[in-house]
């Protein structure tokens, strides 16, 4: 019987895959690490063929070997990836040079050229984002290649991102889901949900470079070809869905489906997203989501787990040493320390923008800030205030997104959800019950679920919560702490206003 669902996510450092039963039980998971090349400062590259596709094949073979499943038991395949990445393909479908990654900053120099032909306002009107938002887009990467690697550009017939490349390798189809197509700013038109012909003409880019079809993530892109089957070990004819971007797949795995749902990912960066039924609200723009007519308004505190790690490394020497001697985990010990301090940290305020912001909501803040310091405050205060700062910032950003849509449910994934002190503070700051899934496989799990939607195994996205939202724990609101945080939060907002005065800083 073929009912197993395969999900694979390509991240910056590794490719992860899971093989799931229709009820969400994970039969096996597999991970393959891969390198990122940094040929110059600010340049980040990977090899599409050996790294993206090669690791996909390795993960699939590992999963089959580990479960003993036959490839015929796999009902469908779904992929997701980091984005926006760019690779150009020649007539034979082979990559022309290394792929440029999302974190690469080289295309910034291209923006003035773009603005000669099309204004920033026009780009924002079509896509909601200017060229430089989120560190840059595939459009900029393409134009950089045209200027500096003409030998590649002149032979290119296609340009793809990571997920799209894997789907092409599997099926021979050039497709993208709405969210990944959107990453081709300025050559996409979010309002029309297709490629922007006027922009392509103005900038002299043939529209044929871009995928032939754009749709929802769970739609079937095609079937595994004989060639691909030979390389990766899947059965020829296995259905493949369009695939997703990693953050969307993460939110699927967190169970975000309905308007008012909020998903939090406690990763290196703390990401939050609120699900709405409209693509834009004043001052903010959405990504297309995987659920039809649902849009995710994302926010990023910027530093989440990176901040707790910073604290451990900069201030947590006693805990790190104790852990090395066989004591408790340093993060648990620090959480214990934080619990000695009352909610609100005795008016100590930490503004957590230690690494700049990932998403700009019309304001700019550079640098983390510790305010309200007195000689009464110690290390425990600073740690608690640091955790609280990330939660205040999350609340601030979520409140700026359609405040008239009440938050119905908060679901959280990521390594940071193991930190009970942190999730309790978040719940009490937001004043909303939180469902945490520390053990979820994340994006590849979401991919596997999307496959089930695509092949018609599930009727709608509601089914996720029935059996796929597994394990985890629920954090209830402590009303007394919530009241204390409401007061501390107003202090935090004042501090933010202060920092906004300091743009020159």
């Amino acid at each position, binding site marked *: 019987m073929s009912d197993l669902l395969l999900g694979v996510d390509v991240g910056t450092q590794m490719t992860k895959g899971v093989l799931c039963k229709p009820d969400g039980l994970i039969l096996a998971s597999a991970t393959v690490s891969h390198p990122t090349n940094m040929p110059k400062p600010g340049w980040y590259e990977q090899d599409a063929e050996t790294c993206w596709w090669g690791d996909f094949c390795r993960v699939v073979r590992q999963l089959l070997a580990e479960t003993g499943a036959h490839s015929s038991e796999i009902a469908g395949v779904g992929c997701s990836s980091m984005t926006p990445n760019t690779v150009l393909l020649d007539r034979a479908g082979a990559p022309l040079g290394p792929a440029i990654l999302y974190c690469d900053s080289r295309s910034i120099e291209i923006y003035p050229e773009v603005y000669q032909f099309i204004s920033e306002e026009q780009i924002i009107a079509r896509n909601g984002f200017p060229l430089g938002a989120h560190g840059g887009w595939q459009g900029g990467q393409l134009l950089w290649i045209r200027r500096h690697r003409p030998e590649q550009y002149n032979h290119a017939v296609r340009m793809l991102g990571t997920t799209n490349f894997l789907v092409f390798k599997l099926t021979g189809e050039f497709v993208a889901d709405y969210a990944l197509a959107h990453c081709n700013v300025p050559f996409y038109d979010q309002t029309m949900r297709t490629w922007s012909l006027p922009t392509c003409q103005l900038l002299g880019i043939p529209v044929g470079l871009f995928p032939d079809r754009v749709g929802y993530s769970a739609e079937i892109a095609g079937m595994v070809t004989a060639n691909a089957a030979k390389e990766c070990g899947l059965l020829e004819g296995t259905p493949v869905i369009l695939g997703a971007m990693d953050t969307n797949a993460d939110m699927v795995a967190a169970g975000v489906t309905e308007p008012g749902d909020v998903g939090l990912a406690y990763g290196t960066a703390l990401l939050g997203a609120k699900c709405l039924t409209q693509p834009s609200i004043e001052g903010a723009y959405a990504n297309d989501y995987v659920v039809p007519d649902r849009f995710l308004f994302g926010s990023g505190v910027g*530093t989440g787990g*990176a*901040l707790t790690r*910073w604290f451990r*490394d*900069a*201030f947590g*020497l*006693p805990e790190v040493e104790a852990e090395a001697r066989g004591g408790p985990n340093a993060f648990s010990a620090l959480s214990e320390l934080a619990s000695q301090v009352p909610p609100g940290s005795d*008016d100590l305020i930490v503004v957590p923008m*230690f*690494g700049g912001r990932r998403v700009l909501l019309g304001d700019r803040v*550079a*640098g*983390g*800030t*510790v*305010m*309200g*310091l*007195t*000689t009464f*405050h*110690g*290390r425990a205060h*600073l740690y608690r205030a640091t955790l609280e700062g990330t939660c205040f910032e999350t609340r601030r950003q979520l409140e700026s997104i359609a405040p008239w849509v009440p938050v119905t449910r908060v679901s959280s994934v990521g390594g940071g959800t193991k930190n009970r002190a942190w999730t309790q503070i978040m719940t009490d700051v937001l004043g909303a019950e939180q469902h945490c899934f520390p053990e979820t496989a994340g994006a590849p799990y979401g991919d596997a679920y999307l496959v089930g939607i695509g092949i018609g195994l599930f009727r709608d996205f509601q089914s996720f919560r029935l059996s796929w939202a597994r394990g985890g724990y629920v954090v209830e609101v402590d009303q007394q702490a919530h009241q204390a945080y409401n*007061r501390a939060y*107003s*202090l935090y907002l*004042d*501090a933010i*206003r*202060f920092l906004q*005065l*300091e743009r*020159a*800083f």
Partner: protein
Amino acid sequence: MNDPLLLGIDLGTTRIKVGAFSLQGTVLGHSAVVLTSAHSWWPCVKQAIRACLQELDASRVGAICIGGQGPTLVTVDAEANLLGEPIPYDDPRAAIEASDLSIRLGRNLSVRGSYLPRVVWLQKHDPDRYAATRWFLQAWDYLILKLSGSAVATSPGGIYDPWPRADLARLGLVHERFPLPARLGTIAATVASNAALESGLPEGTSIVAGGGDFLLSTMGVGGAQKGVAQSQGGASSAFTLCWDRPLQGNEIAWSIPSPIDPALYNCGGPITTGGAALDWLMRDLLDSGAEYEDLLGSAARVAPGSDGLVFLPYLAGEEHIGPHLRGAFLGLSLAHRKPHMIRAVLEGVSLAAKSILSSLLAAGGQPEQVIVAGGQSRSVLWNQIKADVWGLPVVTPSIEDPGCLGAAAIAATGLGFYTSLKDASRNMAHSACHFLPRAEQAAFYQEEFRLFTKLLRHHVELCRELGQLSKDATL
């Protein structure tokens, strides 16, 4: 006695220090005893004097002088026994009385500058203690009373000025309970026989009138000269310039005649949590077991500007800038570690002093050098940062605790070995190290100071709002 020993005694908040000096200011003996409560002051001073004189010929002691913390109000009965705990100089409880007195007497009195408001506070809030009091005394005058059996009010003309009798009468205070004044630098009393036995001092040793710790340390570093600035202190500190006229400005909290030379004025302001900021960072925030010296050494390897990190050192507010003011770290990134924070604290405290310095400059003061003393001056790194931030040579005195030397110089004047306090100070105080500003760093810190000032201005506003908000939320 051509080569007398001069004993300087500095009653601090945590320790009492005694130093024995030659007429040239050479240290011949030194001791320090940790104080617990005020009841330990008298036993501790005797212990410290004995320890200081242990290796010396006590009969050579020509004179002693006592000064220290103030204005602290001490109350004693007719047998010179302490009544209750002293009300220390940093106790704010008489603030209302201070502003009331300022209006009634038509001159500015603050709880930091005078103990009179504390007397009025006692009269109102502790009438029993007030009624039982024989003498209202400064802390050091209490020790003089114990040593000599005579009650005197030393240091008239300084900032701890005793009050004209007419004033006391107008306030309804019994003037007989305030001792008669003894002029700074003159013999005020002599050591009585029983005290001589207990302390090891010769009976009849002259006790020369001294004063507060700022006066003492100014004497001890040779700071009473036009154009000499001082930034002394450990936990809390100040930045002052000696100038030939009073200077007015935003950051200038005081401008008062120098008790050492009536033609000069001490103009400046406080940095309430100077060294305390560093202690707090090391002990409470970093909770570090590492040695002070190692941590400071690590801060030396961080470039000026602490990689974008700025520290505002107002951990306990600052009366003349804003009581709600608090400390802050601004511009933190994931790359910052302890050494950055330590350097930021050293820089922040120095920049806070520069705020006062720039007000002094704007008012027409022209400092030529800054003498630093006290705990902060032990750090070579900090001294160099100060020189670079202030753009002025920074000088450290030859002894770490100049308070005792200053008292000894006053004692030498009282015995007539010097014609004036100024003369004594100039001959007995010596400098040790000079730190010169480095052009490149000084230019950098000039920019950094602009940023600091701007941040501070906004931060004062924010803290005022936050203070208001906290109050509202508590209501």
